[in-house]
């Protein structure tokens, strides 16, 4: 009988494809939007992730993220270095600046000053050039997404910039996770950064700390807080705060939430209507089967198989569509490093199951309520 159920479904090409489209579209919308949402949110933590070697970030108590930071007093570095369990502590400067390109365009950029001696604070990998270049005068390293943005279609190496009216030369390209706003990021030595950033107020944004062997980051951060009165967070905590900041301060969760909900509603609507139409078209056949001697239980199984089949194929297509989308845009800086967290296909699977169960149940009720005696009318 299940074979018959499947043939009934696939035989009605129009509705079969309509159902597949409904589920696939819904799955695609939900999976793709959730993926973009999560990846965008994670960019709130990009500043933290890019500095993979720092175990603990020390900052002013009011600082919240890598980009929303209040300056530390210059004594902070020594204070932190005095805390037992600190293996190393280096200064880290983050500031905004305006850059004038060769063509005269003005662009807001982020300047990150990394420790002169150890270069801690740079992203782990370089795409072009080596980190050594920072020892040359006026050197900056640009992040890769910034490079494609500022110098589309050309190599940025050797390009001169006017950075807050100071000379800067791009000598390397870093492989970095873009920030939430995709701002161009220029890395330079801490001492150099101080020259680019005018004024005396902001001379130190963070102290980056490496934990000594045998002490975990959490313990160390608590110890630093206690001893210095500054705010100290482990890398993971600080990353989470970056994400949290975006959730709280942008319309992103609401916007994506609405799209995902729309995807679900559209799915329910298309699938519900098409499935009900399909059942209605076949109600005489179902009635005949009931009269001939197919139990309601068996009929329910038939409808379940029909719904399940549409669900699985449609879901597969939807997820494939999302993968295809990400693959197609893999080289687009906007989607750099985007991946599908394993939870998302599960969520869209659950949404699909919900759609199928809901619409299947409604359709099934129609069949169940058909009296077998109706076949003689």
């Amino acid at each position, binding site marked *: *009988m299940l*074979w*018959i159920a499947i*043939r*009934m479904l*696939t*035989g*009605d090409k129009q509705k079969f494809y309509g159902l597949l489209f409904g589920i696939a579209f819904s799955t695609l919308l939900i999976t793709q939007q959730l993926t973009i949402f999560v990846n965008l949110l994670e960019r709130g933590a990009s500043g933290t992730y890019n500095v993979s070697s720092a175990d603990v970030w020390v900052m002013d108590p009011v600082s919240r993220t890598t980009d929303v930071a209040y300056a530390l007093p210059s004594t902070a570095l020594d204070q932190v270095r005095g805390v037992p369990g600190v293996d190393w502590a280096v200064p880290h400067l983050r500031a905004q600046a305006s850059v004038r390109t060769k063509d005269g365009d003005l662009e807001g950029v982020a300047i990150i000053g990394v420790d002169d001696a150890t270069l801690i604070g740079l992203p782990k990998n370089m795409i072009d050039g080596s980190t050594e270049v920072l020892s040359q005068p006026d050197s900056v390293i640009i992040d890769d997404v910034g490079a494609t943005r500022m110098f589309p279609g050309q190599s940025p190496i050797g390009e001169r910039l006017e950075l807050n009216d100071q000379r800067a030369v791009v000598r390397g390209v870093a492989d970095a996770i873009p920030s939430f706003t995709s701002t161009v990021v220029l890395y330079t030595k801490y001492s150099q950064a101080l020259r680019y950033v005018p004024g005396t107020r902001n001379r130190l944004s963070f102290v980056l700390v490496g934990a000594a062997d045998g002490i975990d980051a959490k313990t160390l951060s608590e110890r630093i807080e206690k001893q210095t009165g500054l705010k100290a967070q482990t890398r993971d905590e600080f990353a989470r705060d970056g994400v949290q900041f975006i959730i709280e301060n942008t319309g992103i969760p609401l916007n994506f939430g609405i799209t995902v909900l729309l995807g679900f509603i559209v799915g329910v609507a298309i699938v519900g209507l098409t499935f009900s139409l399909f059942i209605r078209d*076949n109600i*005489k*056949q179902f*009635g*005949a*089967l*009931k*009269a*001939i*001697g*197919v*139990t*309601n*239980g*068996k009929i329910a199984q038939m409808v379940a198989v029909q719904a399940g089949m549409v669900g699985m194929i449609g879901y597969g297509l939807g997820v494939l569509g999302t993968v295809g989308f990400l693959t197609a845009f893999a080289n687009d800086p906007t989607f750099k490093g985007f991946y599908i967290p394993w939870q998302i296909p599960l969520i869209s699977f659950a949404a699909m199951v919900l759609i199928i169960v809901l619409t299947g149940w409604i359709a099934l009720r129609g069949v169940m309520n058909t*009296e*077998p*005696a109706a*076949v*003689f*009318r």
Partner: protein
Amino acid sequence: MSATEATTGSQPAIRTRGVTRDFKAGQQTIRVLHGIDLDVCPGELTYLVGESGSGKTTMISIMCGILWPTDGDVEVFGTDIYSLSDTDLVNFRLQNIGFIFQQYNLIPSIDAASNAAVPLIAQGMDRLEARDRAVAMLDKLNIADQADKLPNQLSGGQQQRVAIARALVHEPRLVVCDEPTAALDAKSGRRVMDLLREVGVAEDRSVIIVTHDNRIFDLADRILVLEDGRITHDGTDMPEDH
């Protein structure tokens, strides 16, 4: 009221006692069948005739186990079918009754043989084996060559023969048809009746046909006339006044 006793000594195919059926029409309750007592004999082709609205479809639906009587008992080959559980009744129909619906209600996306095989498949027989049996039945009905075609590739008469094959393929003891010849020309109508007699009627089996097609009245073994929910004639021929 006419209580019709079985003419042979054997168990009747169908035996109804005091069958009534009411339908609700708004506030009113309309009694469509008024306490029908009837014995249908095995080995006979029985017609149920009567004017439109006289209750033929209601009666046949009750006799084949798809419509509950408001009152009364129905035995089919000795089984009091409406005392069975729902599932048992469904299975009873599956094993014992073949249906020919006026709109054949074939499944459009499976071929003729598979359509004819549906009762066997529903009984749990392997699909291909069921299909072979169905092809054999289609052969008896002279349309084995159409076995691979989808219903919409068949003519109306061919579709009906597929429906007849479906009603007979599992060799049910009782076959019921509502207006099987209404849509056919006289010759095809008679051919269908011949087929039904040939394949459906045997010593321990019977066929009940609801019809008001006077072109085929001469083919019945027995004719029952229903008027306003009562049986008013029972014989081998139609009464004079019809």
